[in-house]
């Protein structure tokens, strides 16, 4: 006879789980009581949101399912932002929540929340366990849905009496999915159509999104792109998928994308999309998105097709299957010579402007940091201006090397997610870049970093504003900086010291020297190679802005390249 809690842990082990992130509380205490000796290591964060973001970080960097645990009521509701984040960014995540005992469900009992209902629209699948018999099946099915197809979040809510009850247990079960219409895959016929479209095209481009990484088809994709040799760009989640040195690669596309990428996307007559949702941050005004283009959309999730802009040819299926099929067919045909188009789209006249204005020192600082990172480091960016600067300056080839909350844009993501990344990759340099606003949203996780001795390199780009909102207020709300002033921030260096984490401040003035002084370079090197956690606070000009920028509702061709000169 085993307790329900022991059955949960044995089923987790059967799914390959050896690490979970969580925060204990009343209803989930039986599960915590059973942890010792289970083979499942638990990481205590200091807030449930920290736990779910850490689980996401672990999942995003490994491709495995991340697991978060919380108690009923407030514990479970504190997971909600992470669940929404995992849904938007296709992150495999299983959240196990304790629930009040079965007899109290529906009575507004202490710490009772309808977690199943609250998370219904955010999850891919969920289950409120009713009997102890259901536990093995619920866990097996939950993990199946979390990792299959387009990955996503799952919630398994278990009443506390089910965790305490005892039952004969014959071992974890396997879930066999039933056939679903959504599993329909593209047949081979699409390849002929795309080849014909390419032969008719004079300005083809390729757009790479997160699906390329999730599918594990990066080598196949790179081989295909090398063969196509057409202007190519990536979404924020596609960064690292395309070799940076490739002459056809134009960088990031979208609201803060490069002018070369956005211009090529506006001019193209054939857009090949590989695993991207084409959300509004990528398309700008959908009615003027790629206005001359036919669109071929390689996508695993049919629900993502035609959301913003209809495509001409959907290719449904895993990129690991569809890209090799396309590539093989493509090599049997002669393609037009796209050299003239490539020389325009990738030419020097569309190269990025050197950083100028108030943002210049911060951009140089990020360049120094990123340029001195060991190979295969992982960079996490929080949400805001620093996120876009970091995305613009990310020039590594590591497919899972740049991690951020892209779809949901959840401030406070980066620090706890870095905990999950560092635990998954203990020998990798993990650099966490946050703003002063976002860092304070999960600042309590400094305690987790210290407790575990994780050598995370934390950077705060401190402009004493909610910078991205302030930038919009400056550009679109006549500088009415309503409630974005954070000039009364605490001293982050002192705060880190209180958590026993070494920290120091770098003034932006040192970045006005170019190249930077030996002393500054050494300081950054020491920071990046320290075996301990470290916090670096970088003073950023309060009114520095991110450019290029496509204003909300504008076409990509209407991007602002730099600050309008002030009178």
């Amino acid at each position, binding site marked *: 006879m085993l307790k329900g809690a022991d059955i949960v842990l044995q089923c987790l082990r059967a799914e390959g789980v050896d690490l979970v992130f969580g925060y204990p509380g009343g209803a989930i205490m039986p599960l915590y009581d059973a942890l010792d000796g289970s083979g499942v290591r638990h990481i205590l964060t200091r807030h449930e949101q920290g736990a779910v973001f850490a689980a996401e970080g672990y999942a995003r960097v490994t491709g495995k399912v991340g697991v978060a645990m919380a108690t009923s009521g407030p514990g479970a509701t504190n997971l909600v932002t992470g669940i929404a984040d995992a849904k938007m960014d296709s992150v495999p995540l299983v959240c196990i929540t304790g629930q009040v005992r079965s007899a109290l469900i529906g009575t507004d009992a202490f710490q009772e929340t309808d977690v199943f209902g609250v998370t*219904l629209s955010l999850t891919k699948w969920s289950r409120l366990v009713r009997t102890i018999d259901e536990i093995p099946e619920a866990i097996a099915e939950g993990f199946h849905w979390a990792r299959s197809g387009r990955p996503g979040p799952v919630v398994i809510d278990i009443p506390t009496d089910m965790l305490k009850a005892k039952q004969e247990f014959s071992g974890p079960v396997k879930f066999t999915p039933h056939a*679903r219409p*959504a599993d329909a895959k593209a047949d081979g016929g699409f390849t002929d159509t795309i080849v014909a479209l390419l032969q008719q095209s004079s300005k083809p481009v390729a757009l790479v999104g997160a699906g390329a990484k999730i599918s594990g088809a990066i080598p196949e994709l790179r081989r295909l792109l090398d063969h196509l040799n057409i202007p190519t760009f990536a979404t924020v989640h596609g960064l690292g998928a395309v070799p940076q040195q490739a002459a056809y690669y134009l960088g990031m596309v979208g609201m803060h994308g490069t002018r070369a990428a956005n211009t090529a996307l506006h001019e193209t007559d054939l857009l090949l999309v590989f695993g991207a949702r084409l959300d509004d941050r990528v398309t700008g005004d959908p009615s003027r998105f790629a206005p001359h283009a036919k669109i071929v959309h390689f996508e695993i999730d*049919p*629900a993502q*097709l*035609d*959301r913003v802009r209809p495509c001409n040819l959907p290719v449904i299926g895993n990129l690991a299957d569809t890209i090799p099929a396309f590539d093989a067919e493509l090599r049997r045909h002669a393609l037009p010579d796209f050299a003239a188009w490539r020389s325009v789209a990738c030419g020097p006249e569309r190269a990025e402007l050197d950083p100028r204005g108030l943002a210049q020192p911060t951009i140089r600082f990020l360049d120094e940091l990123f340029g001195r990172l060991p190979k295969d480091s992982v960079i996490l960016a929080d949400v805001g201006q620093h996120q876009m600067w970091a995305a613009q300056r990310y020039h590594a080839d590591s497919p899972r090397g740049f991690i951020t909350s892209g779809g949901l844009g959840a401030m406070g993501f980066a620090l706890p997610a870095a905990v999950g990344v560092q635990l998954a990759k203990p020998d990798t340099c993990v650099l966490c870049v946050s703003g002063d606003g976002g860092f304070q949203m999960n600042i309590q996780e400094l305690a987790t970093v210290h407790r575990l001795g994780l050598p995370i390199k934390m950077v705060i780009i401190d402009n004493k504003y909610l910078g991205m909102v302030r930038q919009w207020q400056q550009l679109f709300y006549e500088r009415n900086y309503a409630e974005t002033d954070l000039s009364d921030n605490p001293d982050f260096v002192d705060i880190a010291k209180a958590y026993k984490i070494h920290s120091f401040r770098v003034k932006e003035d040192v970045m006005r020297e170019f190249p930077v002084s030996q002393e500054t370079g050494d300081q950054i090197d020491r920071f990046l190679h320290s075996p301990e956690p470290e916090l670096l606070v970088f003073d950023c000009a309060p009114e520095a802005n991110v450019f290029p920028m496509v204003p909300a509702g504008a076409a990509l061709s209407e991007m602002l390249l730099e600050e309008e000169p002030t009178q």
Partner: protein
Amino acid sequence: MNAFQIRYRNTQGTLMRIMNAVSRRALDLHYVHAEAAEHDHQVTLVLEVNQKQVGQLYREWYAIADVIHAGSGPAQATEWNSPHPPAGVTIDEPRPAARA
């Protein structure tokens, strides 16, 4: 108006997920009826939708784990305008509220 028939396995939350695809778009829902259908269940929804929303709904419904099939056709106004609640159903007199 369009009538949609969605066939699904009657697992926890599946009907709510089907309905959520409607409610998140703030679509007017004129009629809904769910019932057992052979080994599965079927829900009929009558909605005011445009063509783009039809495509989005289909794809979102098919993304739900236990949806088996989604189909549609033009709604027959007389069929969906029956009295609510159905004429054969009686409603008990409300009990007086308990007072502290």
